[in-house]
């Protein structure tokens, strides 16, 4: 036996009640569960998990870590949040198969859609692959986290059709070529196909997958069916009727080709609650028919961030403010707020929205002087300055020459009771985190911690066992990830050990760890003690990342 986890409280991923036992790990696999004899323990490393939950490693089914994996085989900070397997390549965008002549096109698309800076590619990426197989070989060099990669539909079209991929439907010959190419990707390790019905590229034109006819998607799903692989789509999530149509379309594809399909995201806001009811009713109906259509729901609420330099619709109710921000340049905006008379008029107009200003959090500044204030509410900063939140917001914006960024937290997907019900629904997959994307706007990490802190501890919407099941065994079963997602003898030892009373996502902050001196918003993990991947310690709270290359393509 190589390693023993002693005296932990095991929630095995099946949803069954937790129990206290030891776990023995031999040759990367769980070899024993129960009380271990002294003889059996001899020579083995030991982790004391007394008082902690021992769970299967969490699986994040919707990420865009494709680029980050090229310079960071751990996809930080995913592992420290307890995630042991990620699925990159969503929404029609993977980084292979990709001919050299299309590399900059992909860089542009990743910049536009996932906010990955151009410089991160130019300084962090050596382009030494074209095929999917070569990309897999490339990322496997120092992989710490498990990866179940999708092949992007937009990439297949680009490979086969070149620039025509963004202009027309494919010919029958081209569709057949895409099918052969998808098969090669699957043989090389692709876990399925991703497509998009909504995304725009760097020229604000539809991404290549959006030019596909239904026959093309049908043909590609036939290939998925032959190999029992999954179809992921990003659909028209902002429109109930279109979402209903996509559910039906995916159900038909699922039944015809015997495949699993998933669509993301599904949000629940005050204005679309009725729509979500209708969508879930349709999902339930299609699932009852035997189709496999899994909507993904994220745990975290949606925040809104803004600065004075870019007009935000938050100011649309203030005509003078909005006109100033929309039709003035930076110097003119600064000048308006510096003029005492104009400032007084603007302040007067905005007084009615004081509750909003007071709740805003200062999330980013340019100057060192104001750096200590980042993370504080405007009410708190104002109190220290002897001013109200509105005046403080204006002052900070002027001090930072409009480079002060503010966050209005929990503005959407924020009805904890309703979202909790949705997460608990047996036909909902917990996912849609977008991990690794939107890095310049907000943090997409820590959704699993938030699941436990908000929906298990605070709201009691899910039991601990059910929450773990939904992000481990359920996800593994849906995605066809074998031998993972459940703590049972014979399974691969991907294990997360955490404190159930404290597991959470930390405060959002930004770090400068993107190649090319780029920054991104992240959240640290709270309450996750150790994470094992493939039987090896990948992260511990005390010592950080081990950088052991234990990650697998799954």
């Amino acid at each position, binding site marked *: 036996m190589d390693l023993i986890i002693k005296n932990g409280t095991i929630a095995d991923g099946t949803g069954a009640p937790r129990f206290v036992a030891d776990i023995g790990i031999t040759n990367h696999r769980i070899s024993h569960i129960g009380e271990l004899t002294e003889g059996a323990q001899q020579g083995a490393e030991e982790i004391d998990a007394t008082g902690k939950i021992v769970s299967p490693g969490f699986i994040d089914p919707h990420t865009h870590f494709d680029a980050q994996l090229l310079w960071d085989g751990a996809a930080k900070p995913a592992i420290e949040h307890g995630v042991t397997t990620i699925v990159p390549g969503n929404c029609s965008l993977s980084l292979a198969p990709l001919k050299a002549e299309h590399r900059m096109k992909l860089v542009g698309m990743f910049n536009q859609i996932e906010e990955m800076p151009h410089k991160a590619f130019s300084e962090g990426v050596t382009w030494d692959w074209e095929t999917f197989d070569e990309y897999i070989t490339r990322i496997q060099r120092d992989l710490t986290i498990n990866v179940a990669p999708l092949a992007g539909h937009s990439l297949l079209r680009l490979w086969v059709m070149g620039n025509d991929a963004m202009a027309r439907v494919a010919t029958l010959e081209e569709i057949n070529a895409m099918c052969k190419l998808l098969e090669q990707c699957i043989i090389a390790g692709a876990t399925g196909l991703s497509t998009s019905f909504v995304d725009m590229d760097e020229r604000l034109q539809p991404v290549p997958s959006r030019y596909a006819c239904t026959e093309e998607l049908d043909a590609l799903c036939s290939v998925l069916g032959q190999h029992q692989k999954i179809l992921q789509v990003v659909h028209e999530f902002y429109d109930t009727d279109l979402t209903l149509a996509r559910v039906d379309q995916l159900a038909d594809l699922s039944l015809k080709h015997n495949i699993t399909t998933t669509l993301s995201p599904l949000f629940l806001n005050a204005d679309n609650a009725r729509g979500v009811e209708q969508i879930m009713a349709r999902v339930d109906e299609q699932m009852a028919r035997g189709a496999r259509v899994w909507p993904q729901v994220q745990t975290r609420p949606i925040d809104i961030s*803004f600065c004075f330099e870019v007009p935000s619709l938050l100011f649309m109710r203030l005509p003078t403010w909005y006109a100033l921000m929309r039709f003035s340049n930076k110097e003119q905006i600064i000048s308006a707020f510096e003029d005492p008379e104009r400032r007084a008029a603007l302040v007067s107009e905005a007084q009615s929205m004081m509750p909003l200003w007071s*709740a805003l959090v200062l999330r980013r500044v340019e100057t060192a002087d104001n750096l200590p204030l980042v993370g504080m509410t405007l009410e708190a900063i104002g109190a220290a300055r002897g001013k109200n939140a509105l005046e403080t917001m204006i002052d900070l914006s002027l001090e930072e020459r409009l480079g002060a960024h503010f966050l209005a937290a929990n503005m*959407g997907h924020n009805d904890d009771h309703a979202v909790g019900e949705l997460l608990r629904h047996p036909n909902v997959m917990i996912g849609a985190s977008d991990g690794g994307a939107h890095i310049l*706007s907000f943090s997409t990490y820590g959704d699993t911690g938030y699941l436990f802190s908000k929906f298990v501890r605070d709201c009691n919407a899910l039991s601990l066992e059910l929450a773990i099941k939904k992000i481990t065994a359920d996800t593994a079963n849906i995605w066809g990830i074998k031998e993972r997602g459940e703590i049972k003898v014979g399974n691969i030892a991907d294990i997360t050990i955490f404190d159930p009373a404290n597991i959470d996502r930390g405060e959002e902050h930004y770090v400068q760890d993107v190649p090319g001196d780029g920054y991104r918003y992240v959240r640290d993990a709270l309450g996750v003690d150790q994470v094992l991947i493939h039987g090896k310690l990948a992260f511990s709270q005390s010592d950080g990342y081990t950088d052991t290359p234990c990650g697998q393509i799954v």
Partner: protein
Amino acid sequence: MINPQTQFCPATSFLWNLPRLNLLPNKINSMTALISHVHLNAAHEGIAELIVTLTFENGGQSQVPLDPNTSSILMSRCQASDLSELIGQDWTHIRDALTESFNSN
């Protein structure tokens, strides 16, 4: 049954409890749809977006999300200085705003 939240925090409460811009016009011309409701929403990319509700002559409704640029163009096209002035406007303004926004990129 999923119930919409009415109040959670001061900021959220403020936005959702703004004076309801939900004034259905007395007459709806045939073969058209009019803007009957407008409110702000949090888009998944972390920005505010406008949700415009259209009401058709048969009472059916649909919602159209608009990004900040398209929203501004819509306001200009409707010569509206306040969101309430969008109520009762014809759906074609939205179509034209979307077209202008798309073509300007």
